[in-house]
């Protein structure tokens, strides 16, 4: 009980609150990521108690992941990599003048998804962590392929164009040093290309800069208008009523998110895409996805916040980072004199209880802080489009540079911006391309390392139980359309026969 109340001690509560506002700010700016927010907070946290320091990390990461959805929804520019999927239906809702509703839904689902992730962390962390241990290259390969198959789901209408986009993404992901042999590919002796195309500048370019170019093409008239036309009105009750009806979607997405987050090889970004794809695939109205449907907003956002809870599972149970944020956290724990790892529950049980409490309290605070964030953002977006777009360009450049202090990444951002603009002109969807870039290394490296392990034998990829589950899911993704039609035909046919017999 004492540990639980410790959270409300001003020495912990105030840093938590401050870090949450900081997270909103960082997450809302394209290019500044949740990881960066945490990396910036860590040096400050050393001056605080361990619980206060970790409270700041938790607060900033949860708010940053939500806040990334704000520019994604209003401007189609993801604020963090985990917000990529929010550019789909969230932005479509904004176009219909329902942007503030989309964000209110987003905020509540972030908090609920986050809570589910934390509850799973508290209740079933050890078994989930052991499940994650079962994953090795074979399973990750299929998980990656399953994620990539979502690009078919994500491409509106024209599947060929969707697949082309995914393949462009895959090809881009082959640039850089090859993990299995250390051989540089397509690097043209350029040292900057050695570690590959940085994902974040590419994403900012594809979504952010291309959006700016699109609006410039709209001419002076559209540029002098306010960036968003709707009156920002936040109506929590309306949002809660909608969520109440779709609570199952939130829970399902949050569970998927937590599971994916718990895998050391996958994080919030993949969780968001996969749950969006799963939701569309199992929806009764898949054709509405991508046109501004509510389910398309709540699925990915429930998943990405839940994934954060998931990443703490291997971190606490094994002392192994679930993502870049928990990697930094584990380092910080050492600085606090806490040895992360299996013994942490016994040696620092108080702290673990404290972390759990802070994480849950943060979900409640998120709703209030998030509303402030939405309000603040909408004030900015009342400015002329031209002013906002100039700001977007500046922050895109700063964000791209800040990833690893490299001018090269600014050029990457510019090139991808132009590429995204041109591809959209010929109706090639960008989301599958992002999936290709994220999942390319996961698929390729795990296939090759897996084959290295078996000495070139493919059979192990097909024999393991988790692999088989993924294979079935992939087959289902590609055939479900036909399958449903077939079943419908069978049942309808049967129905007719029954009528005849009567």
């Amino acid at each position, binding site marked *: 009980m004492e540990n639980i109340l410790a959270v409300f001690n001003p020495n912990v509560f105030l840093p938590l609150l401050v870090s949450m506002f900081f997270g909103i700010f960082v997450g809302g700016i394209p290019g500044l990521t949740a990881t960066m927010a945490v990396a910036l907070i860590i040096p400050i946290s050393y001056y605080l108690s361990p619980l206060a320091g970790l409270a700041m990390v938790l607060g900033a990461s949860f708010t940053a992941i939500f806040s990334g959805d704000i520019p994604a929804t209003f401007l189609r520019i993801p604020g963090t990599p985990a917000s990529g999927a929010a550019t789909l239906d969230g932005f479509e809702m904004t176009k219909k003048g329902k942007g503030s509703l989309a964000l209110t839904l987003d905020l509540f689902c972030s908090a609920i998804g986050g809570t589910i992730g934390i509850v799973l962390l508290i209740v079933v962390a050890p078994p989930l962590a052991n499940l994650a241990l079962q994953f090795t290259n074979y399973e990750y390969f299929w998980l990656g392929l399953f994620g990539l198959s979502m690009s078919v789901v994500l491409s509106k209408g024209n599947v060929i164009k969707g697949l082309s986009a995914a393949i462009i993404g895959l090809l881009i992901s082959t640039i850089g040093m090859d*993990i299995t042999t250390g051989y540089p590919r397509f690097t043209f002796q350029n040292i900057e290309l*050695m570690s590959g195309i940085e994902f974040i500048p590419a994403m900012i370019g594809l979504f952010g800069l291309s959006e700016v170019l699109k609006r410039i093409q709209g001419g002076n008239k559209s540029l002098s208008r306010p960036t968003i036309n709707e009156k920002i009105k936040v109506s929590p009750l309306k949002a809660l009523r909608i969520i109440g009806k779709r609570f199952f979607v939130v829970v399902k997405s949050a569970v998927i998110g937590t599971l994916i987050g718990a895998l050391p090889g996958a994080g919030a970004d993949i969780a968001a895409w996969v749950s969006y794809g799963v939701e569309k695939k199992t929806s009764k109205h898949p054709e509405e996805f991508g046109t501004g449907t509510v389910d398309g907003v709540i699925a990915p956002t429930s998943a990405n916040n839940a994934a954060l809870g998931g990443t703490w599972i291997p971190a606490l149970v*094994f002392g192994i980072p679930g993502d870049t944020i928990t990697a930094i956290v584990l*380092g910080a724990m*050492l*600085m606090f004199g806490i040895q992360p*790892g*299996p013994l942490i529950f016994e040696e620092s049980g108080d702290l673990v209880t404290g972390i759990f409490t802070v994480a849950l309290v943060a979900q409640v605070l998120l709703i209030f802080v998030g509303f402030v964030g939405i309000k603040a953002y909408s004030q900015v977006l009342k400015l002329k489009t031209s002013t906002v777009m100039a700001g977007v360009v500046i922050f895109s450049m700063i964000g791209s540079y800040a990833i690893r202090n490299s001018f090269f990444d600014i050029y990457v951002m510019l090139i991808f911006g132009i590429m995204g603009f041109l591809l959209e002109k010929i109706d090639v969807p960008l989301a599958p391309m992002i999936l290709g870039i994220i999942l390319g290394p996961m698929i390729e490296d795990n296939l090759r390392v897996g084959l*290295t392990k078996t000495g070139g034998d493919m059979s192990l990829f097909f024999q393991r139980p988790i692999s088989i589950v993924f294979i079935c899911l992939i087959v289902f993704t590609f055939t479900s359309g036909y399958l449903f039609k077939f079943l419908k035909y069978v049942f309808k046919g049967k129905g007719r026969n029954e009528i005849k017999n009567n």
Partner: protein
Amino acid sequence: MKKLLLVALIAIFAITLFAVNYPTKSITLVCPWGAGGGTDRLARFMADELSKELGQPVVVVNKTGGGGAVGHGAGAYARNDGYTITLVTLEIATMHWLGLTPLTYENLDYIAQVNQDPAGLIVKADNEWYSATDLLVDVAQNQGQYLFSGSGAGTIWDLSRIGMLNAVGIVPDAVTWVPTTGAAPSIVELLGGHVDAITCSIPEAYPQIASGDLKALAIMADERDSRFEGVPTLKELGVDWASGTWRGIAVPNSTSPEIKKILEDAVLKIASSDAFVDFMNKNGFGIKVRNAEEFTAFVEEQDSVWKEVLKIGGYLVE
């Protein structure tokens, strides 16, 4: 009179030439590895302490990519005025042999070494191997059967494994190296039973060793580590091989000797402080201090050691 004037002039000239006023502005410390990692933590600690010593702010800049080539390059090709210093890591002695960069250790001047982490040989606790000897005998008899991991291909933990096998006359291909992105994912692979053994520094796997899930069979150092007294060195077992990663401070080559001296004194003073020892222990970093002269000789020696091992492993690009 004329003579006296000349002497005076020379004297003034000499004083202005040699009495360097350093530092007068903020110093950049280049960290070739990402924010939040182990090397970054060390860089930030050193930056804090150096700014206290030198009375000027020291700012850490992470320049990552190219397996360390980008950051080391940025540090080496900076102006040699002492205002850009680099947290140099072992990769300076391997990158160019791997063909990643034309940059060699000679592009930098070495100030002082502060850390050295020997490789450990780690297996699952329930494994039948009870010593490194068991493991090596088994590997020699069952070539091609076991999977080893620890990090990427051609990285220090891979090279530690190659060197160890080579020291007992086993070809590197006798075990399959499973490349990963670092020690942490390799530990996951080992815990999950997907690989048979890993080579990485013992502190990296310490949480799992302490909990009884993993065990360290040997440490690849000249002497035992006081923190892990029970872990024998390979040399005790008759395997003449020591290997590990190290970190230190360096500046671009032909930086003026005065500036180097000021930096060296500062770093050595920090390295003898209680705060430093405390920091290193908390983070599981091994302490190894070498002054400029010793460090320079050490890096030179390392460069040829790794050339040889990379050649044996088939990684050498000439």
